[in-house]
């Protein structure tokens, strides 16, 4: 094995872990960072996106369109959940956790009853390529690119658009945003739908690589929460750097001792970061800049 082969293998592992962390966490991070709501049904929005994507693809939609449909359906369900449940609990953050956890149980069990214990999946598209005797999936590179696209898209949305300025004003001083004409309720509602839609997008993107079961959301949940906890409340200053650090830890531990140690490494990293930076990476960066 020459140096380039080793370097590429390491880079590929890192990219794969980074994409999984970013895509798992982004929807959760948007809802937590912008609204302070901890959405325990996050995994089920991912599941929703995956199921819709696979159904769409099986019905003959091209995969990219099926994924988009998955994201849109998850966003619509998110808007509905916000209106029916979350909106009534903004003053009661702990109750929101219980309520979204309840929704998560209902969604998992409901899917099990209605659609059965598993759903026929679709294969991973785009095939593979070889470097130095190792075979790599092209689709995993697409996932990495998509993770970057999602981060860049969120950056543009929150920094360069009217909605972005309204949303950031609303999280910083909600009553003042309202007093300046911002319909804060609509901002919260759209933000929740955005977070749910991002979760759906993640489900759609990973659907071709996984077995579809009603509990598939839990696959993403640990990574999602670890990334948000390490990152803190800010998507850009938190989620992105947290995903870089955690991806390095995870890919290094995984290639050293396998999947299980990769997971253990993530949990250890969280414990260390929380000891040193109680408000996560973004809390630390914002304090330094203030």
């Amino acid at each position: 094995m020459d140096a380039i082969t080793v370097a590429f293998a390491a880079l590929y592992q890192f990219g794969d872990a980074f994409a999984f962390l970013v895509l798992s966490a982004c929807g959760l991070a948007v809802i937590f960072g912008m609204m302070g709501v901890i959405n325990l049904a996050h995994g089920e929005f991912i599941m929703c996106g995956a199921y819709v994507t696979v159904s769409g693809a099986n019905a003959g939609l091209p995969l990219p369109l099926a994924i988009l449909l998955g994201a849109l359906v998850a966003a619509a369900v998110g808007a509905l959940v916000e209106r029916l449940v979350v909106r009534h609990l903004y003053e009661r953050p702990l109750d929101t956790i219980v309520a979204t956890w309840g929704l998560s149980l209902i969604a998992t069990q409901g899917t099990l009853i209605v659609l059965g214990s598993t759903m026929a999946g679709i294969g991973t598209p785009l095939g593979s390529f070889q470097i130095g005797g190792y075979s790599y999936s092209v689709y995993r590179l697409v996932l990495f690119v998509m993770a970057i696209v999602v981060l860049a898209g969120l950056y543009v949305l929150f920094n360069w658009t009217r909605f972005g300025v309204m949303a950031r004003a609303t999280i910083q001083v909600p009553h003042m945003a309202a007093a300046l004409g911002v319909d804060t309720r609509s901002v919260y509602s759209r933000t929740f739908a955005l977070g749910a839609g991002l979760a759906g997008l993640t489900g759609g993107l990973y659907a071709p690589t996984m077995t579809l079961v009603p509990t598939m959301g839990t696959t993403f949940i640990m990574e999602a929460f670890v990334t948000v906890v390490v990152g803190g409340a800010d998507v850009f200053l938190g989620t992105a750097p947290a995903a870089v650090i955690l991806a390095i830890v995870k890919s290094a531990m995984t290639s050293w001792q396998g999947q299980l140690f990769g997971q253990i490494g993530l949990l250890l990293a969280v414990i260390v970061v929380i000891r040193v930076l109680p408000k996560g990476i973004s809390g630390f960066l914002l304090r330094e800049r203030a």
Partner: protein
Amino acid sequence: MVNETLLSTKGLRAGYGGKPVLQGLDLDVRKGEIVAVIGRNGVGKSTLMKSLIGLIPSMEGSILYRGQPIDALPAHKRARLGIGYVPQGRDVFPRLSVAENMAVGELRHAASDTERERVLDYFPILRERWSQRAGTMSGGQQQQLAIARVLIADPELILLDEPSEGIQPNIVQDIARIMVELNRSTGVTVVLVEQNIDMIRAMAQRCYVLDKGRIVAALDRDALADGEAMRRHLAV
């Protein structure tokens, strides 16, 4: 025009957590006036301002704006009717730049370049600090931003809550001068809550005295000039 009532409250009761701070408050503000509301700490001045803009709900009585009750409207809809609120403590968005703070002000009324330049001409410091985070500016600069952020939407009524608090005297004078100038040139109506006698005298045409959630006196311009009476109302 001159005597047309722009804003009035009738028997207004409002407060926090079911406890009214305002105990049946009646006031009238005519179009184009600068009216001050004075009173000691804790008599309900800021509560009045918050209930006028809609940050706390009316419990009883009503608030009329251009003759229409606005009690049922949430704050953002009142803002879109042309009411600009400059709160006590300024409440700029600390992690947004000056430009972005202004952009939030512009959401309900997209300002033309000329309008924006005119507002910035009053507060040139904001032009210098255009891309700086608002939270890193001094109190006086934040106060200017809070006022400019409201002016950019070309309001019909400005609710100005203790603009002099914690700000150096020369900036207080500037703000008073600018508000009077704007009032003369655009006819904007101002309700000013203030403790600073000099600022009240520099700006207000008349004045209500608030005590225990009620209006207990209305002073005209001559009474405002009477230093002894003013001190009594503010300091008792």
